[in-house]
């Protein structure tokens, strides 16, 4: 029988489908094999390529099948439906944007210091638990959260998470969301400031470089405002060259007998300096300091992430840290607590971050051209963020374990002298010597690398190691170390100044109801007062962290992790409510399972942080232990302050638990009402309008 013209085309289509299935099957096999190679390897060094391969292949499978299933079956994305960007296009917020540009824009907005610092700290358990959670958590949790919230906001004219919480769950939900964001910001700002303080304390090179970024930012602000208005890229390029020059000059400063002491600051002095900086950045005109630094920081951030990825692919370093360390038992020197729940709390943003839901319901939904673009933008960008977290884990694990623990352990745990520290760390089975640490410190241009808690110095060491092996060798390792420190500090400071400003606005918003003048952003006394209040709030926690004999990170990072996961819990409650109202209850597990997991993790971690009888974990036990030492008469005022701080941390943790409980109970009430039929499940989406943009145009 003769072939019709459509038969060869059908045969070719079948062949293409078969080849496609074959390729995806191969990707799945590689993902499974790489994960297996990572998981079963014991006693030998593993190459970082396995981690990258496992991550990338798992992401590909998750993106192609799981996310596509969610997009098509659960959300029923529809390119015929006009998005808010098309319907409400105004040349400002609402603007149809090319999907890859929006992908980059969204990724730049969600990529913060969390996915870099969290994995470095979690590496104390070994590379395996953290890496597995980063990969799996992102595919089934973090990316799903970002995607569903982006979809929900896009269908609601770009409404914020708070507004959606208020409309979908109730007024209480909206208020809790606002309060949570404010509380998280205070803890977040304190903890990231502590990371910078610990990275710069006693480091004239690093301190000079970061100090130099202030006048550079001011110059950029002036240049952009008056010299070459509108030339942001040009201005940022000049700023970048000046920052590079500052890194080179920093080496000279560190070697100068005159200038080195000027820039050698204690942790307390640096804490005050950063607090003052936060105040100034919040109160000064935004174009002068904040905005130019933010532009520069965004470009440097993207550039360094790209460089790190290229470096890891090129060098493919061996991981020196084992798959598991002895600290899975909960006695880790960096932070105390067992893998469950503390690994998940510590990794935070690399796997699932509540803060992303603010971005997914902020600018991004207003710029999506076609509904299906939410798939790569919402889900895909989180996968890339997760890959950044895997790279941070690799950077931490390429160091010798002894060096890693010497850098990251506080004096209160390993001993107050280098000799005591190396003896303690070596006794754990991670040999390291004072000479080795001195040599390393000398190579990177630091006076010492002991007790540099917070994750930033060890991440910088790992990055410098990878960059130096890509070219230049040991001769340039000092430059790369300080380049990495500059990169981390630069965008952490951007988070601090922008965060303080946002906190100020939130406070002004609330206080404006009490006294209208306080709500006016143009009334200087109100601006100064509210800026001061926000700075004092996070500055207090920062000071507490700096004075903490256990290094501060032990207390503050878990608090931040709990707070961040709490925000994710709120986002997933909103997402689940929306799915139920959309009559997609049979798919409730998509957001319900990550929600259940997060509630379990957050509650367990918060409970342990408050009530654990181990003083290094439980705040109340720590306060009791300190109380017992009060009778000895030594350092009474200091000990009383530590007792107060431990109790304050317990209260903050308790407040977080109560907030989770409120939002959960409120959501459960709504869900039960819908299932029982006593409540209407009204979908609050914007009405359907046929898109006039063709797919090609998009």
């Amino acid at each position: 029988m003769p072939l019709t013209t459509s038969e060869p085309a059908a045969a070719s289509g079948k062949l293409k489908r078969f080849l496609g299935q074959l390729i995806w099957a191969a990707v799945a096999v590689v993902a499974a094999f790489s994960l297996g190679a990572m998981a079963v390897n014991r006693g030998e060094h593993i190459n970082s390529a396995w981690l990258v391969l496992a991550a990338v292949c798992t992401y590909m499978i998750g993106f192609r099948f799981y996310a596509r299933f969610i997009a098509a079956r659960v959300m029923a994305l529809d390119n015929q439906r006009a998005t808010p960007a098309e319907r409400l296009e105004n040349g400002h917020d609402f603007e149809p944007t090319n999907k890859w540009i929006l992908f980059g824009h969204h990724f730049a907005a969600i990529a913060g210091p969390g996915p870099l610092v969290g994995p470095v700290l979690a590496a104390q358990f070994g590379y395996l638990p953290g890496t597995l959670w980063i990969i799996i958590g992102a595919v089934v949790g973090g990316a799903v959260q970002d995607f569903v919230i982006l979809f929900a906001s896009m269908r609601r004219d770009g409404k914020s998470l708070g507004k959606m919480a208020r409309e979908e769950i109730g007024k209480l939900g909206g208020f809790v969301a606002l309060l949570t964001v404010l509380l998280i910001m205070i803890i977040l700002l304190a903890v990231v400031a502590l990371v910078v303080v610990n990275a710069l304390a006693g480091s004239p090179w690093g301190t000079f470089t970061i100090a130099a970024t202030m006048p550079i930012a001011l110059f950029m602000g002036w240049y952009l405002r008056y010299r070459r208005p509108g030339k942001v890229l040009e201005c940022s390029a000049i700023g970048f060259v000046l920052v590079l020059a500052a890194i080179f000059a920093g080496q000279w400063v560190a070697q100068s007998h005159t200038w080195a002491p000027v820039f050698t600051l204690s942790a307390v002095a640096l804490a005050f300096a950063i607090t003052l900086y936060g105040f100034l950045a919040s109160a000064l005109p935004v174009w002068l300091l904040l905005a130019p630094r933010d532009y520069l920081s965004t470009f440097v951030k993207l550039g360094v992430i790209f460089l790190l990825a290229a470096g890891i692919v090129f060098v493919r370093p061996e991981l020196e840290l084992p798959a598991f360390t002895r600290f899975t038992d909960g006695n880790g020197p960096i932070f105390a607590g067992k893998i469950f729940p503390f690994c998940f709390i510590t990794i935070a943003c690399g796997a699932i971050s509540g803060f992303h839901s603010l971005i997914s319901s902020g600018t991004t939904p207003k710029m999506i051209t076609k509904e299906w673009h939410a798939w790569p933008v919402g889900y895909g960008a989180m996968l890339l963020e997760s890959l950044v977290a895997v790279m941070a884990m690799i950077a931490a694990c390429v160091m010798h374990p002894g060096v890693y623990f010497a850098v990251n352990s506080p004096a209160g745990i390993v001993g107050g002298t280098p000799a005591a520290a190396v003896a303690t760390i070596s006794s754990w089975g991670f040999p390291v010597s004072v000479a080795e640490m001195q040599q390393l410190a000398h190579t990177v241009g630091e006076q010492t690398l002991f007790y540099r808690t917070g994750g930033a110095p060890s991440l910088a060491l790992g990055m410098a190691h990878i960059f130096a092996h890509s070219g230049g060798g040991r001769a340039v390792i000092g430059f790369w170390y300080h380049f990495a420190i500059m990169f981390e500090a630069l965008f952490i400071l951007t988070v601090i100044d922008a965060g303080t400003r946002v906190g100020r606005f939130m406070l002004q918003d609330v206080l404006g109801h009490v006294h209208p003048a306080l709500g006016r952003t143009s009334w200087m006394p109100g601006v100064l007062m509210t800026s001061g209040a926000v700075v004092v709030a996070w500055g207090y926690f920062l000071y507490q962290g700096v004075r903490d004999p256990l290094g501060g990170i032990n207390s503050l990072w878990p608090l931040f992790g709990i707070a961040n996961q709490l925000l994710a819990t709120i986002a997933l409650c909103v997402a689940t409510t929306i799915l139920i109202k959309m009559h997609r209850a049979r798919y409730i597990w998509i957001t319900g399972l990550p929600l259940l997991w997060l509630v379990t993790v957050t509650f367990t971690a918060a409970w342990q942080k408050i009530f654990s009888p181990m003083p290094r974990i439980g705040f109340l036990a720590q306060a009791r232990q300190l109380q017992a030492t009060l009778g000895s008469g030594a350092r009474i005022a200091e000990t009383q302050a530590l007792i107060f701080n431990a109790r304050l941390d317990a209260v903050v943790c308790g407040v977080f638990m109560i907030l989770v409980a409120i939002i959960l109970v409120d959501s459960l009430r709504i869900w039960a009402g819908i299932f029982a039929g006593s409540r209407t499940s009204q979908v609050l989406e914007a009405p359907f309008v046929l898109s006039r943009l063709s797919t090609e145009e998009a």
Partner: protein
Amino acid sequence: MTRLRMFRSLMLALLRELADEAAYQRHLAAKDCAHSPDEWRKFSDERLRAKYFRPKCC
């Protein structure tokens, strides 16, 4: 070669978007006015006010 050019132009467009330069061009087009230092300052003030009302991600 064409793909490389496409990639380069995409990257440049992304940088312009991140730098708010693309948004400024849209602003000029929407207002049907030409670039001037005052117009940039007006645009920048509005843009930055909105931008820093939102928290930055961690």
